[in-house]
């Protein structure tokens, strides 16, 4: 029953969020100066031409009518057609999703496998007199270094000198796995710098918090070895904030790593949606933003479920003091 109510609450709030996001995006697009007709026909088109174009796409109706039309179709699974490419939006986004997905997965896995051990290690080596300044400097730099700076440097270095990894030249994994990886490693690495730093930092703080818990002292007092204590008592108890962070980073990256996609010329979702904003390709923007919001909500639910599995006090089905 508790579980059912939890799912119900999550579902209602998800629907409300998606509806809100779709309305907000819809209004924001309509509020932008310069509509589809002006943008496409250019500054010298006559009013007559603009009206004709607007009429053809139904853009002369009121915003409410337009939204209603979009909503009805969207609920039926039809997200419309790109007014630029004349392709269905769903298939356009579908073709770009694997690129963005692969990028996000590569960056997040790197963060998981490098950031978490790094965080645990720096926490265990931390000294109360504020040592570990170098580690803090490096992770601070990683978190604050903008992607366009790091990305530009990487693009420059790897295009100027032949270092074995290619800048641009994306090919689908299915066509050429090796070529795909050589093209994807650099952008994924650029994205992972932030992810690794943030993960290492969060892990370090979480482990430091767990280290002072009485149950860790109790385990030390029982004569357990550091490796045993880390494996059995520290990792799981420190995992909650790391899981939440990783899910947020994943969701953020799945929404499209716009700058990196541009820099490395990757056909991902981020650059596509931004391009669509510029061209007032309404249906594409609408569906793209909604996709990002859905991913966010879904990852949040997953993070909540995982956190519940990790810590019984925080779980979906957490029982209170039952004895």
């Amino acid at each position, binding site marked *: 029953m508790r579980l059912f109510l939890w799912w119900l609450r999550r579902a209602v709030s998800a629907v409300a969020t998606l509806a809100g996001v779709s309305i907000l995006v819809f209004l924001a697009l309509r509020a932008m100066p310069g509509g589809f007709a002006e943008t496409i026909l250019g500054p010298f088109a006559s009013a007559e031409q603009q009206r004709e174009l607007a009429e053809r796409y139904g853009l002369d109706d009121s915003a409410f009518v337009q939204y209603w039309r979009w909503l009805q179709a969207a609920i039926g699974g039809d997200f419309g057609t790109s007014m630029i490419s004349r392709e269905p939006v769903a298939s356009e986004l579908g073709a770009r999703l694997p690129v963005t997905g692969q990028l996000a997965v590569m960056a997040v896995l790197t963060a998981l496998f490098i950031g978490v051990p790094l965080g645990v290690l720096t926490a265990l080596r931390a*000294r*109360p*007199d*504020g040592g570990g300044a170098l580690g803090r400097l490096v992770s601070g730099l990683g978190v604050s270094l903008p992607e366009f700076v790091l990305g530009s440097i990487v693009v420059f270095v790897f295009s100027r000198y032949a270092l074995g990894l290619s800048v641009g030249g994306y090919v689908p994994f299915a066509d050429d796995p090796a070529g795909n990886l050589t093209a994807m490693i650099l952008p994924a690495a650029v994205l992972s710098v932030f992810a690794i730093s943030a993960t290492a930092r969060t892990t370090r703080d979480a482990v430091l918090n767990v280290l002072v*818990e*009485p*149950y860790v*002292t*109790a*385990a*030390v*007092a*029982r*004569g*357990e*070895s550091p490796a045993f204590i880390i494996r*059995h*008592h520290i990792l*799981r*108890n420190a995992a909650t904030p790391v899981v939440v962070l990783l899910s947020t980073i994943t969701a953020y990256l799945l929404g499209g790593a716009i700058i990196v996609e541009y820099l490395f010329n990757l056909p991902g979702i981020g650059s596509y949606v931004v391009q669509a904003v510029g061209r007032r390709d309404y249906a594409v923007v609408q569906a793209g933003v909604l996709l990002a919001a859905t991913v966010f909500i879904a990852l949040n639910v997953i993070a909540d479920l995982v956190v519940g599995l*990790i*810590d*019984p*006090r925080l779980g979906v089905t957490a*029982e*209170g*003091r*039952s*004895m």
Partner: protein
Amino acid sequence: MTPLMEADDLAVDYQAPGRRVRALDGVDLTVARGETVGIVGESGSGKSTLGSAIGRLLSQNAQLSHGALTIDGESLFDLSAVQMRRVRREKLGFVFQDPIGSLDPTKRVGAQLRLALRGRGASLDVTGQLERVRLADPRRIARAYPHQLSGGMAQRVAIAMAMATEPELLVADEPTAALDSQVRDDVSTMIFALAAEAGTSILWLSHDLAAVGRRCGRVAVMYGGRVVEDGPASEVLARPAHPYTHALANSAPASAAPGERLQPVPGRPPVLTGPSPGCAFADRCGFAIERCRSERPRPVRIKAQSVLCHRAEELAGSAALAVHGVGSAVATTPPVPLGGDRS
């Protein structure tokens, strides 16, 4: 025969940014096999630091300044990390103040008990171990998570973990301070019974003067990081030989006759930044003379007690240190904790 535990002029400092705090200022204490010793003192007297030092569980900012601590003849601060772990596993047991916090919140009780017992010759029968600490319905408790237990239940689980290996010395740092008063007595009784059965010595750190007096064979009173009085429990509490013990006994609610005002110990405990030049209690002591502030007292023997006081012999001859109210209150009144705070 070497004593089981011996602290010899043990001094420990905590290094905080910009200042040093001396927590232990030359502790001398021995615990013989099978003995039950209560350590009594206010917050900040150094008793928790002493308890942690015995397991080498001091926080990273603590430093051994001088002195030595031996368990069974082995000098703890000279051992490697691996040797220290062996001493902890084979000889020491700890029970801490926060019972629920001492258990891993993400593991079921049975699972963590099994984890704590494996590979050390203890019985892995979780239900049996929980029955030994008199937990009703052990099967259900084995399946529960720590946050689903009461403080008393959790402390029994922690005791089961500590006592399953039959350690030679059990260090109990205010193990009942966080419990309800009814449960408190049961848990104390059980710890002493299990220890007696296993031949385990107990070092019982407490505010609770009366309870210590009833249960422990010996009492050591700590003040300013030193043991200022040490002797048989009944003697120390009924006929204190140190002015501080006297003040402590008079401030305990149990020692007052009905209608009598409790006399709090005037002033506050000192925070030492280095070795105390004289007696740390001098500033709060009604009997202090010039010498008390400038010269560190050395232990003198007053009857069965060992006392750190320049004027102990003088005062022992007078009635100055008589305990108010019922003289033998210690043995007859219910335990009441000294002071509300516990640190």
